[in-house]
């Protein structure tokens, strides 16, 4: 058939758009996949149908999680029985909780307040109400002094690239 050229141009445009989007996604994902070195570890254990949180110092919380604003936290997420998924919608934290496996996700809450923690993987009878409360409080110390400035991700204004050293 004729008019072959326009079709090639169209496909070319589509492919370029996808390449651009893909590269942008790759860039941001690199950020998400590398928790800052000084993140505090919080163990998240999901089971039918509630959440247990264990802090580094041994404190255990059930159904509620207290975090400090401005501190990066690395969640080590696992499950006791069936698949669940740890989700804080307002902070875009989402990772599956799979029995026999520990998955990691990190976040640095930047505003105090109460947030919803919910289960995002069908896990049976009370999946729909498997919720917990996240409470972000003001840090008790100037925690940012504990973090090496070079470990905090930086977004370059010109290129909009997110840079994490190492």
């Amino acid at each position, binding site marked *: 058939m004729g008019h072959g050229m326009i079709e090639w141009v169209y496909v070319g445009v589509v492919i370029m758009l996808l390449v651009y989007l893909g590269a942008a996604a790759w860039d941001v994902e690199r950020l998400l996949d590398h928790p800052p070195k000084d993140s505090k570890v919080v163990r998240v254990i999901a*089971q*039918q*149908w509630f959440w247990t949180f264990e802090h580094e110092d041994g404190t255990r919380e059930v159904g509620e999680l207290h975090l400090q604003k401005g501190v990066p936290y690395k969640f080590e997420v696992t499950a006791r029985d069936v698949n669940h998924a740890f989700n804080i919608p307002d902070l875009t934290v989402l990772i599956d909780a799979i029995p026999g496996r520990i998955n990691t996700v990190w976040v640095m809450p930047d505003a105090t307040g109460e947030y919803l923690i919910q289960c995002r993987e069908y896990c049976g*009878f*009370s999946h729909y109400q498997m919720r917990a409360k996240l409470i972000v409080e003001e840090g008790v110390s100037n925690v940012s002094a504990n973090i090496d400035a070079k470990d905090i991700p930086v977004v370059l204004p010109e290129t909009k690239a997110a840079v994490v050293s190492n």
Partner: protein
Amino acid sequence: MTEHEHGEEPVVLTSPGRMARGIIIVAVTLAIGAAVVVTQFENFFSNAPPVTRLQTGPPPPPPPPAAGVTTIAILAGAAGQGNPDYDPDDDATVPMGNKVVWINHDNVPHTATSGTGTDDQDSGVLFDTGIVNDGESSDEIEIDGEVGDTIPYYCFIHPYMTSQLTIVEAEEGAGSGPTLTILLGSSVQGNPDYNPDPMTVTAGDVVTVFNADNIPHTVTSGTGPSDPDTGALFDSNILNGGDTATINTAGLGAREYDYYCIIHSYMTGKLQVTE
């Protein structure tokens, strides 16, 4: 094989009659299917996966020591000096191994503290309920001692309220009330949940609820979460694996009671209380 013409539309041309017959066939089949689905709905959903019976999880917690509970009432008006205070009073007997619960029927707080009075150096050493508010019950108090020991006690707030209890031989069956066990693996829908179910007790029995599973459960009166009277008649509250609780059937009339687990509401049972 039926004949079809070539070159023309190879069609099964419909007519209203044919259409009607087709619809009837489909409708009847669907109706039969719907009837089966509706009547057998729960039956198709009632077996736990076979693998769960084979599971080797952590070992089940040991059963509780057989122990019953003896109740002693703190009478209404006990605060008034000279009024009857405890019932049973000086003749109270506690079978060996039983725990004691004091129920405060008065309208002011009381205690049951071991010893002869406030100047007793050993006051409260053997047992002390602490403050029992009006209308409430004390914790279950373990009584240490041998058969034949007589232990005096008094109310710390109103020291003129005195009494004593004597430890006697353990009862047949060690004074244990009936035990309701929450079975290991009961959280998996389709597995057996409560044992015995139905359970028959006499009004006044104290039922010991023992959670033999390794996750929390409850025994809560009612038919399910939508029952407005959930927990109104009895409630073990949340029992962790290995824990026990008691349910006192003293106030219950003689009939059959439904109960369920509020965490896993597909676990249900029946408690039959007789005179």
